[in-house]
């Protein structure tokens, strides 16, 4: 990175929060602080919802995921448009009618206080940890690759977000997310264009896609019924539907985004915008990863993308083993590049044989990378995140022109700040409205609750930075966030669906059903290896079934609410 990159980076990440602070200057009532004001329109809501979900992991890890395993991850989003339609039709009208600040207030009105607190508690646990991962994930990669100190990176992103989120509440989160998302979309479009432009002239773009497809990188849809396959059409449609329904319907970090709209119409249009654009947007981000893969068929990639970890392993006395692997890797790469270059000249009969040979060489490359990874681990270097998370940042730093490098680092930090701001805003609001107000100070002034919400938002920010400072990830960054969500979302969604659709069920039946369902999901997670998206379905179904059984067997005769 040079001075131009730093200028673009600093100007981008500071200008947006400063503009937001200027737009939201002055004091706000509790309603304005927690729900924005009626002037927020559907386009801002739509971009805000998109930015909240995307986060840094989407832009940092997803191209690497496609580089490594292909674009099949796109199927995880297939349930989302359907879920958003259900949220528009069922959830949003109820929240708007009841004029709630948090989704869990609805549980309190429909059932009882303990069910409201359980829903809010599950949300706080899950989102509190997720906020730490959101800050940690890009910080660990950027600190390694750009050379910044890890704690400095964590405090830079986290500290700035705390300042503006505490100051401006929901309105500043919506305003800043709108502009941060525009920067992100423009930056990713430029990255896509540069990556296509940098592809070798030896193959046309279509031929490059064809080769990537034959090497297993472009299987977007897979109709397999195997429950152990992580990404299939069915797991994406069914598991993804329940994950998205829970996330958009019952996760306060999203509910707060669309309740910021002045009217039911603005909220619904903002969500339908997401239903339309999410799948294409994710497709292009994954396709970018596949294009980076094709780029590295002509340009020699590092044998191990996490170069700082690799260099530490060299210093630790593992140079001979790593040099031997590097030599083999170079030989295989040379053969592979010659074969890819020759593909455009071979006849259709020879093409099949050539592709078979190419897949064999690619398998050898993967094997050599795995063996290198094993040596790096043996050298006592713990990279703390999956190697594929370093693919896209390596491509940015080594292949993009100056200025664009700064913009793309800004994209990653903008994504971090926008997702973290929404999360902190929701964590502070939920703690203030669902715990502090009813349990500690039920009859204070509006101003008192605004101050409390600000203090709690700041406190959650410090918790997130604390988690980020001590976190070490066990799997790919995308997976960590989604797995954590899937473990808790099923039970939370079950609470809401029971409230909406099972008229006779009471708070106690649902409360105990949710506890049992959550325990069941924990046990399944610890003892089986089923695809994590299924936990959303299992947790939700368990709450609905157990609540119905408990109502009939144990709580029969207790009075059920008629529903709100």
């Amino acid at each position, binding site marked *: 990175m040079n001075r131009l990159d730093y200028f673009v980076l600093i100007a981008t990440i500071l200008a947006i929060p400063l503009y937001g602070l200027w737009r939201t200057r002055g004091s706000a009532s509790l309603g304005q602080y927690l729900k924005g004001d009626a002037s927020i329109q559907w386009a801002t809501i739509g971009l805000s919802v998109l930015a909240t979900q995307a986060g840094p992991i989407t832009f940092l890890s997803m191209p690497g995921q496609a580089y490594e395993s292909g674009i099949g991850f*796109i199927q995880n989003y*297939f349930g989302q*448009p*359907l879920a*958003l*339609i259900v949220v*528009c*039709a069922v959830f949003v009208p109820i929240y708007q009618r009841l004029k709630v600040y948090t989704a869990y207030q609805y549980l309190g009105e429909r059932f009882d206080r303990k069910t409201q607190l359980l829903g809010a508690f599950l949300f706080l646990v899950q989102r509190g940890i997720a906020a730490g991962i959101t800050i940690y994930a890009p910080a660990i990669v950027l600190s390694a690759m750009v050379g910044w100190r890890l704690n400095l990176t964590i405090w830079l992103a986290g500290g700035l977000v705390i300042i503006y989120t505490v100051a401006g509440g929901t309105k500043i989160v919506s305003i800043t997310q709108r502009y941060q998302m525009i920067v992100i979309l423009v930056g990713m479009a430029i990255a896509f264009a540069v990556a296509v432009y940098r592809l070798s002239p030896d193959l046309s773009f279509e031929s490059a*896609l*064809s080769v*990537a*497809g*034959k090497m*297993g990188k*472009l*299987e*977007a*849809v897979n109709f397999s019924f195997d429950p152990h396959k992580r990404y299939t059409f069915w797991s994406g449609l069914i598991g993804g539907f329940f994950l998205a329904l829970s996330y958009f319907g019952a996760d306060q970090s999203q509910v707060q985004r669309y309740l910021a709209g002045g009217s039911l119409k603005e909220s*619904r249009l903002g969500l*339908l915008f997401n*239903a*339309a654009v999410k*799948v*294409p947007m994710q*497709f292009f981000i994954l396709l970018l990863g596949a294009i980076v893969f094709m780029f590295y068929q002509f340009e020699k990639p590092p044998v191990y993308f996490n170069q700082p970890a690799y260099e530490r392993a060299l210093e630790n006395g593992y140079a001979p083993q790593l040099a031997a692997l590097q030599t083999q890797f170079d030989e295989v790469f040379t053969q592979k590049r010659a074969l890819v270059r020759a593909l455009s000249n071979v006849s259709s009969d020879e093409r099949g044989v050539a592709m078979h040979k190419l897949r064999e060489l690619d398998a050898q490359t993967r094997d050599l990378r795995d063996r290198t990874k094993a040596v790096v681990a043996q050298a006592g270097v713990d990279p703390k995140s999956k190697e594929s998370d370093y693919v896209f940042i390596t491509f940015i730093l080594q292949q993009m022109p100056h200025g664009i490098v700064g913009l793309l680092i800004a994209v990653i930090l903008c994504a971090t700040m926008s997702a973290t701001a929404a999360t902190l805003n929701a964590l502070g609001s939920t703690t203030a409205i669902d715990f502090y107000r009813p349990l500690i100070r039920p009859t204070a002034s509006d101003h008192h609750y605004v101050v409390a919400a600000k203090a709690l938002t700041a406190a959650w920010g410090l918790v997130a930075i604390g988690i980020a400072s001590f976190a070490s990830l066990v799997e790919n960054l995308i997976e960590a966030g989604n797995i954590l969500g899937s473990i808790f979302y099923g039970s939370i969604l079950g609470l809401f669906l029971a409230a909406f659709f099972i008229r006779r069920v009471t708070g106690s039946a649902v409360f105990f059903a949710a506890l049992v369902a959550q325990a069941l999901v924990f046990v399944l997670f610890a003892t089986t290896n089923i695809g994590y998206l299924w936990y959303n379905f299992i947790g939700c179904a368990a709450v609905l079934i157990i609540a119905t059984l408990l109502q009939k067997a144990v709580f029969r005769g207790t009075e059920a609410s008629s529903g709100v």
Partner: protein
Amino acid sequence: MNRSDYKADARSWLKAYGLALSLFTVEVVLLYLFTVRFS
């Protein structure tokens, strides 16, 4: 909002949901064709 306004509003939202669903179906079909073409 009176009853007829409410019905008209509900109908227009149903059309919007139908449109979103159709768009999603087209997106999945295009992704499937992309898979078939390049895999």
